């Protein structure tokens, strides 16, 4: 097509009345023909933005984006699991069993384990998984622990205090109510 034809297309382009094929042809011609471009810019200066080149982000930037999205998706999944349909009585039963296991472990060893792997092994033997063991601090053998089970909304918490009301030495287990038993 000659320049004249393209020049006649300008008003239709601005009114968005060109089909996509002619529109693409028009834009391509403006990119390659400086005379038509000049005339078109004089008529409609904002056309300069229609011809700006595309800039591609670096592959590293894209991968950084992928990583953050995947992290976001995993967090979202975790939250969804925690919000999943619950059977609070099951969770409560699990919490009580857990408390019993912890208490017996206490009696047998005389101490609350410094790390939670022992507890997890015990729990595993009893067929229970402990999704989150927040804190476990070694405490003296005596006296026996005081255990409290608390349900806060959908979460079941097991508090185990080493000595009386001293909450600074103790362990808290949060039982995920959504977990399968």
């Amino acid at each position, binding site marked *: 097509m000659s320049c004249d034809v393209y020049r006649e297309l300008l008003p239709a382009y601005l009114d968005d009345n060109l089909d996509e094929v002619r529109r693409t042809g028009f834009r391509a011609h403006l990119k390659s023909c400086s005379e038509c471009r*000049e005339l078109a*810019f*004089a008529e409609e200066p904002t056309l300069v*933005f229609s011809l700006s080149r595309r800039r591609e982000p670096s592959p590293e930037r894209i991968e950084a984006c992928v990583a953050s999205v995947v992290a*976001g998706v995993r967090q979202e999944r975790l939250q969804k699991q925690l919000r999943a349909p619950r059977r609070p009585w099951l969770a409560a039963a699990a919490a009580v069993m857990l408390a019993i296991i912890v208490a017996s472990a206490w009696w047998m060893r005389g101490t609350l384990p410094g790390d939670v792997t022992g507890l997890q092994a015990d729990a595993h033997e009893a067929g229970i998984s402990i999704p989150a063991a927040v804190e476990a601090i070694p405490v003296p053998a005596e006296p026996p622990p005081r255990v409290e089970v608390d349900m806060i909304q959908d979460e079941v918490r097991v508090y185990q205090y080493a000595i009386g009301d001293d909450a600074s030495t103790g362990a808290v287990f949060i039982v995920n109510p959504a977990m399968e038993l």
Partner: protein
Amino acid sequence: MDDRKVVRAARDGDEDAFADLVRRYSGGLHRSVARIVLDEEEAWDVVQMAFVKAWQRLDKYDSRWSFSTWLYRIGTNVAIDLVRSRASRQKAHRAETEHRLRLVGGVDEASARLDHAEVDGVLRDLVRFLTPQQRAAFILREVDDLETAEVAKILGCSAATVRNHIFQARKIMRREIQERFPEFVPEDQRGRK
């Protein structure tokens, strides 16, 4: 693998499939969003947020839509909300402070005016005079060259509304170009509104 298959896999919980979609579309979405929010880094935040939202809503995705249209709709909405919340806070955002750009060359030096970085800078300067909807319509249609029907889907309005947004956007930007960048306008037309 085509989008629909990848989307189906992602919907079944395949994170790698979803990561593939991010690789395919994050660059393009970022380009559009950056021109709406006028900040490269914030635009990446918008893109990430859009993908996480898309993941959350994958079960509601209607496969009659192309995935990219659907994603752009989510991303554009996040971007528009961001621009609006900025405006409502009346916060002078650093991206909205005026660039003092010198454009090289006069009317005859068309190739100089197609200098990518400069044109982008001027576009940034002018776009802030537009409403979020006008920005989005102009950028998606005129700069990114999406079809009007697709832009209408993305913005959730009619094709006529998209055309009207673009018409208004051109009018506002023309006025600003004449005031700020008179070198862009031929001498015999300066002062013409």
